[in-house]
């Protein structure tokens, strides 16, 4: 298959946008990508979204967004893989362009989380878990992550405070990101004292669900407007839908598998990755992702945070624009934000958040508690 490039990125602020609708948020992201990559001429549109049906009473987002954004007539479809939706949509665009079915494709991730408030949102979020065997028991995504975290702490002798720096680092990096939801500093002391959501997970451990939209222009040729960013690997893997069906729940097997496949197809090793935008919906996800992607031994992912090797100047920079924790977690759009932020790093356009000399970057998005994992590796081609 031929080379595929990210020619344009479009980011909009993540947060609570009470005055904006699903279609408007998507359109603003498309406007943003058109400012970044003038004259986009996409032949296909992939819309990533998780909860338009249950929260906004709106499915069929391919036609909705194509119509509203003035792209009427274009091939368009929505892609859903829970929290991995955005990255899964990029993979569909990648496949279309790599196969020669399109010269360029647009990826738009959009989530309108605030169209509902209260227990209805929690019920919608719980549809990403196993409905018959997890959600029916009152288990929520946060509860499932909490079950993993408690077992991890028990198995590896780790305390809550050992996870603090994942969130502290995310908030520190978000301070200079105009699109971040929370740009306030967070201290390790405040982290351990925060109100409990589902113990041991507290308010400063979990990423805030919010509205947001981001877009990518995927092309067969690099744009002259920016340094060329090539998709060096695009991989996807699945694990059991329910956590209880896994031989070892403390291994994110789909993350391990999709990362290994990405390293294998690109020939790029974890040592070469200079930025890793991982899926920090919960700090335990960060620890398990670092282990699955080969940056830490099993049971030692937390230590990269505790030893502060995850900062922008550290050995494994993560959440460089605030991550899900501080930039915000707009569901189906999240994977697109992660990719766009990785691309900005490799272009050298990350401003105060720049990882010096970054040439290789990786982003990884997780659907459910590790059930779908999509990994992308990007390379700046000089």
């Amino acid at each position, binding site marked *: 298959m031929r080379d595929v490039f990210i020619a344009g990125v479009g980011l909009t602020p993540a947060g609570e946008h009470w005055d904006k609708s699903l279609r408007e948020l998507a359109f603003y992201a498309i406007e943003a990508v058109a400012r970044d990559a003038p004259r986009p001429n996409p032949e296909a549109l992939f819309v990533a979204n998780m909860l338009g049906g249950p929260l906004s009473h709106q499915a069929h987002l391919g036609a909705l967004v194509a119509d509203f954004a003035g792209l009427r007539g274009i091939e368009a479809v929505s892609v859903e893989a829970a929290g991995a939706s955005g990255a899964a949509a990029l993979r569909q665009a990648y496949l279309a362009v790599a196969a020669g079915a399109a010269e360029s494709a647009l990826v738009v991730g959009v989530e309108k989380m605030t169209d509902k408030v209260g*227990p*209805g949102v*929690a*019920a919608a*979020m*719980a549809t990403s878990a*196993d409905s*018959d*065997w*997890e*959600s*029916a*028991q*009152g*288990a*929520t995504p*946060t*509860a*499932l992550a*909490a*079950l*993993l975290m*408690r*077992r991890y702490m*028990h198995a590896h002798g780790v305390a809550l405070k050992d996870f603090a720096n994942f969130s502290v680092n995310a908030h520190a990096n978000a301070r200079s990101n105009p699109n971040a939801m929370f740009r306030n500093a967070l201290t390790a002391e405040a982290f351990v004292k925060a109100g*409990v*959501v*589902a*113990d*041991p*997970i507290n308010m400063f451990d979990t990423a805030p669900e919010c509205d947001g939209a981001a877009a990518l222009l995927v092309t067969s040729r690099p744009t002259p407007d920016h340094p060329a960013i090539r998709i060096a690997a695009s991989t996807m893997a699945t694990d059991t839908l*329910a*956590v*209880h*069906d896994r031989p070892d*729940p403390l291994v994110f097997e789909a993350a391990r598998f999709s990362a290994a496949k990405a390293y294998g197809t690109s020939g790029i090793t974890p040592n070469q990755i200079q930025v890793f935008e991982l899926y920090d919906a919960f700090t335990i996800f960060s620890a398990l992702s670092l282990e699955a992607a080969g940056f830490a031994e099993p049971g030692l992912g937390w230590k990269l945070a505790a030893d502060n090797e995850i900062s922008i100047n550290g050995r494994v920079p993560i959440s460089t624009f605030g991550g899900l924790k501080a930039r915000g977690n707009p569901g189906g759009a999240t994977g697109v934000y992660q990719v766009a932020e990785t691309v900005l790093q490799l272009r050298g356009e990350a401003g105060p958040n720049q990882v010096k000399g970054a040439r290789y970057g990786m982003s990884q998005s997780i659907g459910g508690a590790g059930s779908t994992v999509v990994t992308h590796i990007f390379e700046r081609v000089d």
Partner: protein
Amino acid sequence: MEISRHWRLQQQRYGLVGEVCPHCEVKIFPPRDVCPNCAGEAKTPYVFTGRGEVFSYTTVYDAPEGYESNVPYTVALVKLEEGPLVTAQLTDVENGQVSIGTPVEMVTRKLREDGERGMLVYGYKFRPVLTTN
């Protein structure tokens, strides 16, 4: 109303009926008709004893629709004595009386309610072991 969705799982919800693999004898819950161990066909029903121990647990304060009246409630991964893990609520637990490894047994309790005039859904939960049989 989603009666059929719950009705068709009554054997599992009320009786913890799973499967046993006729090839490698691995016990399977929830049933999935294909053995997760040897990938052989596994459709032989098997009734679990309902005994096990707590593998992990958490307390939910932010409940989804249908579960609000139980808040806060404890959700656990229970390791059944026959092998499988199952996700279930713990009940009859006083504050702090549960930890990883606590022996538990299955009981039938109300899982959720669909409003004042809606359906009540019953199913398995687990409580710390009362008896020694």
